[in-house]
C-alpha cells in the first residue's frame, strides 16, 4: 500500500539529495552536465588525438563509442554506490521515525536515474551534431536497456543497503570492484583491443553487454543482444521481488546495528 504521504516523502527525499549534492557550489546543477562532459573530453583527447584513430574506429565513431560507454557505466556506478549507502546515510531518520524504509532506497536510485536521463540527452545532442540518424527502434531499445538496468540496480540495492549496515567495508570493496568493472566493461577502448584470450570477460559481463548494445544501436541502428536484455529484465524483476521480501524482513533489525 502506497499512501499520498509516501509519495510526497519520496519527492522530498529526492529533492533534498539533489539540493545537498550541489549546495554551496557556484555552478550548482551545471555540474551534473560538466562532470561527464569533462570525463568524456579527457578520455577522448587522450585516446583519439594521439593517433587520430582508436583501434579501427575513426575519432568520430570513437566519440559515440566512448560516450555511450561512459553514460551506461556512470549509471551502473552511481546506482550501485548510492543504492548501497542509502540506508546507512539516513541512519539518523531511521532511528527516530517509523516511515517506510524502502523510500530511501528508491530515492537514492532515482537520483542515479535522473543523472542517467540527463546524460542520455547529452548523448542525443552529441549524436545529432555528429550526424547520427536516430531511429525509433534504436532509441526505444536504449531506453529499454536503461529500464532493465534500473530494475536490476533496485533489486541489488535491497540486499546491499542492508549488508552495508553490518559490514562497513562493503563501501571500499565496492569501490575497488567498480574500478575493476570499469576496465572489464571496455568503456573507453574498443573490444578488439583486448587480447582474444581475455575477451570472454567482456562477453560475459552484463554491463559490457549493455554498453555494446547501446553502441550498436547508436552507431548502426542495430538491435543486438535482445535475448540477453529480455533475460536480464526477467532476472531483474525476480531480484526485486526476492529483494523486497528480504529487505522487509531484515530492515526491522537494522536500527540496532547503526
Amino acid at each position, binding site marked *: 500500500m502506497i499512501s*499520498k*504521504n509516501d509519495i510526497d516523502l519520496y519527492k522530498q527525499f529526492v529533492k533534498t539529495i539533489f539540493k*545537498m549534492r550541489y549546495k*554551496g557550489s557556484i555552478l550548482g546543477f551545471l555540474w551534473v552536465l560538466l562532470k561527464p562532459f569533462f570525463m568524456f573530453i579527457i578520455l577522448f583527447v587522450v585516446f583519439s588525438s594521439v593517433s587520430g584513430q582508436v583501434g579501427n574506429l575513426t575519432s568520430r565513431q570513437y566519440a559515440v563509442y566512448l560516450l555511450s560507454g561512459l553514460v551506461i557505466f556512470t549509471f551502473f556506478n552511481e546506482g550501485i554506490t548510492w543504492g548501497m549507502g542509502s540506508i546507512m546515510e539516513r541512519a539518523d531518520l531511521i*532511528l527516530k*521515525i517509523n*516511515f517506510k524504509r524502502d523510500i530511501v532506497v528508491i530515492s537514492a536510485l532515482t537520483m542515479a536515474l535522473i543523472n542517467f536521463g540527463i546524460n542520455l540527452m547529452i548523448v542525443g545532442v552529441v549524436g545529432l551534431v555528429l550526424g547520427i540518424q536516430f531511429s525509433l527502434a534504436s532509441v526505444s531499445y536504449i531506453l529499454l536497456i536503461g529500464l532493465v538496468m534500473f530494475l536490476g540496480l533496485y533489486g541489488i540495492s535491497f540486499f546491499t543497503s542492508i549488508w552495508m549496515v553490518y*559490514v562497513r567495508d562493503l563501501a571500499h570493496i565496492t569501490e575497488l570492484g567498480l574500478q575493476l568493472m570499469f576496465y572489464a566493461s571496455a568503456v573507453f577502448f574498443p573490444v578488439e583491443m583486448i587480447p582474444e584470450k581475455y575477451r570472454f570477460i567482456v562477453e560475459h559481463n552484463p554491463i559490457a553487454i549493455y554498453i555494446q548494445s547501446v553502441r550498436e544501436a547508436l552507431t548502426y541502428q542495430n538491435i543486438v543482444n535482445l535475448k540477453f536484455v529480455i533475460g536480464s529484465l526477467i532476472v531483474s524483476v525476480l531480484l526485486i521481488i526476492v529483494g523486497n521480501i528480504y529487505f522487509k524482513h531484515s530492515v526491522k*533489525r537494522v*536500527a540496532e546495528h547503526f
Partner: protein
Amino acid sequence: MNENTAIQVKNVSKNFRIPVKGHKNTLQERFLNPFQKTEYREFSALKNLSFEVKKGEFFSVIGPNGSGKSTLLKIVSGIYVADEGEVKVNGSLVPFLELGVGFNPDLTARENVYLNGTILGLTKKELDKYIDEIFDFAELRDFADMKIKNFSSGMAVRLAFSIAIRVKSDILVLDEVLAVGDADFQKKCYAYFDRIKGLKSILYVSHALDSVEKYSDRVLWLKEDRSYEIGSPETIVNGYKNAN
C-alpha cells in the same frame, strides 16, 4: 485486540548484546583476529513487560536512566523489534523521539517545514495549507527563507514544535522532547497537552514529575531491576519519589 485499546504491549522482552571485546565491524578486524571470539555482555533492557494504553488516554512512563524507557518507545514506534512478546498498535502512530527530525541545516526554514512535515506523515497539500500558520505560531514569519543553520537553537525548536502540533495521528509517542526550550516554550507545550488531552492517545516519557502527575491518566514506573508498576499518577509518582 479490544477496540478501545490504542497500544497493547504483551510480555515484551528486549535484550541488547553489547560487544565488550573483539567487536568486528570491519573485515580488517576479522582478518587480524580470526579466532578471537567476540565477547558480548547480554543487557536486558525490558523484561516481560505488559500494559495497555486505552484510546484517548494520557499514559506516562517514568523511571531512572537506563530503565528501558527509550527502548520501550522505540519498540512501540516500530524502530526496534521486541525479542519476545508482541506490540499491537491500533491507529496511526507518530513518534517524537526528538523534535525537528531530518532538519537539514543547509535548507531554508520553509524547505525544512516541508521536509520535516512530510517525514512526520503530512502530505504536501496539507503543508501548503498550514505553512503560514506554522510560521505564525513559531513567530518566525520573517525568517521563512533563512537557512536553518543561521537559526538559534531556540528558533529551530520553536519551528519544529510548530510543525509537530499539526501532525494528524491517533497516537503520539513523546520522549522527553518537550524538556528542551525555555519557560515560555514549555508553557506552549503544556497548552498543547491541554488541547489534545482526551482526543489523542499519548505515550509520554518524562523526568518532569510535575507534568506527569498533572496530565497523566495512568503512569508506568520502570524500575532498574526490570520490574514495573502501573497505577494512578499520585500513587506511582509518590512511590517513585520515595524510592529515590
